């Protein structure tokens, strides 16, 4: 008895997974259909609907299968050219996809498809006056066969938790490898001979293998960013319709791959930026015409790899952002003073957009402009160790650029000492490491400043921030200290340490639930020595310090 129950849930999982994929295809292709009716697209939609019908019938979900059956009927009319694609038809098809998605959620929750499908079924039926013979649609479709032959690579579904487990094991392997090479180093100081040489060679080989292994596992966890991008055409279409705008979405680089843990987190921020671009960026068709632009605005999304990061650009050819407006808005909202607004560079002013409580839209709209969006977007991106930047030109458009690490699991880090404890600074933020003398530090208005390449930069004493120690502790016996110059939102900031202990690839372990949110610490790692080092969250740390400095003024 229990055995058959178990089997059922197993199939249910598979059904859910496949249905989600099919529905995604369905939605994408329906949107394509709207742009251009081609037999190829119709064939794809038809096949997806057909598969959904088949599997839902097998599972006994009658409501699900009756909706898909009607979709199939309607599509067949289109395919046989008995009907022509209209917005009304695509709207109905899309809302039936929505219903199916809703149904899937109900099935996931309750295990059965208790849902009122009458309305949507009727709506679908309204287009086709007579119902076509069932057997006709059940005929196998030609392209299905050709595609199967074309499929070269074989794939296998693997449970994500299994991959995560393998990843954990590899991480431990990496730590042990570092440990062994440290032991070898100690040994080679005391002994020499062929055994030590062999050990050396074996360790080198081990390093290559673990590196490859790590790489392969990472790759297995990667997914194309298309899984997120696929949601966008629908969002753009619906929102543009609602706002009475004409927007064309161009997506490229959808096959760029990144770790699924990253993928999970960047979907919402991207969506928010996209909504913002449609709502605030793109003008209404009439406005655009007056400016001599085409009535239809364009939003481009490009994704590409750059070193160990993925770069995502969201480019609109809308009205751009008025920097003066931002400044005056920030002043009226008491975010900055008149005086500092004047001193502010354009880039700094643009970054005010990411401050909480800021919204440039004069009216609060349902879509965006509640002033809660962009700061959350930025903090989400920063949590991933990513950077967000924007460029804008009045009446030309705005470009948001996101730089996000491919994986969250492993980073290159600089090991620094603070109060005799080792800390890790993520490499991607580091500009330069310098050694400075005590008398090179100037104190201006209570702020410690160092002149770096003829530009004054603020200094932050890690010793003081983390341990509330006296600044004097940071200097060695020659009155010198090591300063790591990091990039904070495009500005160099000096972090004062007590010394540099090396660099290493580190496996990030989150602090976890029990430690809570620790300001300025993003995680921990185990060093080759077996000791634990904390990883400094540079963005958070600098931001905290900056606000506390600003408040003092």
């Amino acid at each position, binding site marked *: 008895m229990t055995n058959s129950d178990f089997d059922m849930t197993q199939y249910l999982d598979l059904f859910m997974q496949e249905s989600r994929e099919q529905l995604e295809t369905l939605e994408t292709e329906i949107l394509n259909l709207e742009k251009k009716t081609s037999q190829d697209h119709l064939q794809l939609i038809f096949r997806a609907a057909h598969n959904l019908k088949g599997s839902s019938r097998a599972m006994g979900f009658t409501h699900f299968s009756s909706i898909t059956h009607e979709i199939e009927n309607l599509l067949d009319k289109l395919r046989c050219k008995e009907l022509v694609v209209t917005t009304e038809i695509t709207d109905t098809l899309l809302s039936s996809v929505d219903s199916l998605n809703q149904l899937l959620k109900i099935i996931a929750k309750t295990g059965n498809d208790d849902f009122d499908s009458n309305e949507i079924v009727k709506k679908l039926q309204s287009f086709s006056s007579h119902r076509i013979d069932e057997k006709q649609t059940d005929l196998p479709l030609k392209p299905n066969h050709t595609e199967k032959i074309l499929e070269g690579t074989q794939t296998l579904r693997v449970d994500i938790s299994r991959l995560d487990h393998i990843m954990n094991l590899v991480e431990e392997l990496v730590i042990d490898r570092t440990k062994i090479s440290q032991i070898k180093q100690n040994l080679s100081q005391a002994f020499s001979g062929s055994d030590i040489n062999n050990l050396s060679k074996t360790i080198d080989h081990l390093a290559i293998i673990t590196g490859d292994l790590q790489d392969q596992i990472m790759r297995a966890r990667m997914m194309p960013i298309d899984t997120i991008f696929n949601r966008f055409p629908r969002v753009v279409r619906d929102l543009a319709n609602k706002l009475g705008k004409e927007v064309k979405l161009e997506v490229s680089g959808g096959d760029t791959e990144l770790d699924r843990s990253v993928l999970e987190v960047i979907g919402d921020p991207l969506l928010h930026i996209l909504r913002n671009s449609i709502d605030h960026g793109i003008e209404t068709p009439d406005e655009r015409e007056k400016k001599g632009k085409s009535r239809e605005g364009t939003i481009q999304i490009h994704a590409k790899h750059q070193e160990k990061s993925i770069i995502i650009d969201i480019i609109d050819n809308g009205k751009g952002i008025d920097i003066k407006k931002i400044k005056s808005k920030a002043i009226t909202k008491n975010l900055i003073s008149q005086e500092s607004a004047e001193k502010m560079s354009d880039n700094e002013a643009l970054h005010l957009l990411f401050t909480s409580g800021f919204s440039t839209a004069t009216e609060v709209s349902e879509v965006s402009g509640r002033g809660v969006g962009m700061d959350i977007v930025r903090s989400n991106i920063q949590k991933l160790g990513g950077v967000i930047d924007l460029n804008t030109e009045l009446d030309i458009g705005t470009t948001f650029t996101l730089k996000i690490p491919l994986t969250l699991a492993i980073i290159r880090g600089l090991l620094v000492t603070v109060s005799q404890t080792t800390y890790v600074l993520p490499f991607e933020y580091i500009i330069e490491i310098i050694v400075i003398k005590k008398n090179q530090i100037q104190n201006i208005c209570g702020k410690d400043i160092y002149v770096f390449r003829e530009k004054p930069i603020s200094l932050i004493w890690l010793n003081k921030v983390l341990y509330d120690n006296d600044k004097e502790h940071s200097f060695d016996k020659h009155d010198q200290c090591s300063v790591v110059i990091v990039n904070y939102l495009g500005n160099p900031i000096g972090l004062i340490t007590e010394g540099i202990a090396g660099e290493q690839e580190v496996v990030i*372990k989150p602090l*976890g639930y029990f430690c809570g949110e620790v300001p300025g610490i993003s995680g921990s790692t185990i060093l080759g020595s077996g000791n634990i*080092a904390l990883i400094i969250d540079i963005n958070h740390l600098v931001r905290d310090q900056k606000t506390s400095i600003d408040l003092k003024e």
Partner: protein
Amino acid sequence: MSLIEKKEQAFQSVVFKLGNDLYCMDIFRVNEIIRLREITPIPRSSAHVKGLINLRGKTIPVVDLKVRMNLDPSCELDDNSRIIVVDTPHGSVGIIVDAVKEVATIYPENIDTSSLLLSDDSSQHLLGVTRKNENVISILNLDKALSAV
């Protein structure tokens, strides 16, 4: 919820000391008991978070329940101190205790829950109290004691 469960049948528990008082927790929650080892403190974290330990390649947070439950923290760590590693839905966590005494069977009929009616801070983290020989043992409500502040 686990209180009702536990009232129905006897269960084995690990008895340990926090300060001068005896506490116990369900043995099935205990993953392992280890000697004190180097704890890496986390600056700017909550007071009850002692830091992180390296347990065979995993970093595990260690908490001090005495701080968490507002008990007298004066007892110093010494040779008898142990870390009890327990599994939770949020991952493993180490609990510093001043000594581990024994494994005892707790009978439901001996659990006294009347003290829970008192609204003092520390009793919020208990499932009840029981007696063994001359000693009073407080039964820890692990999930409540560990839940983030």
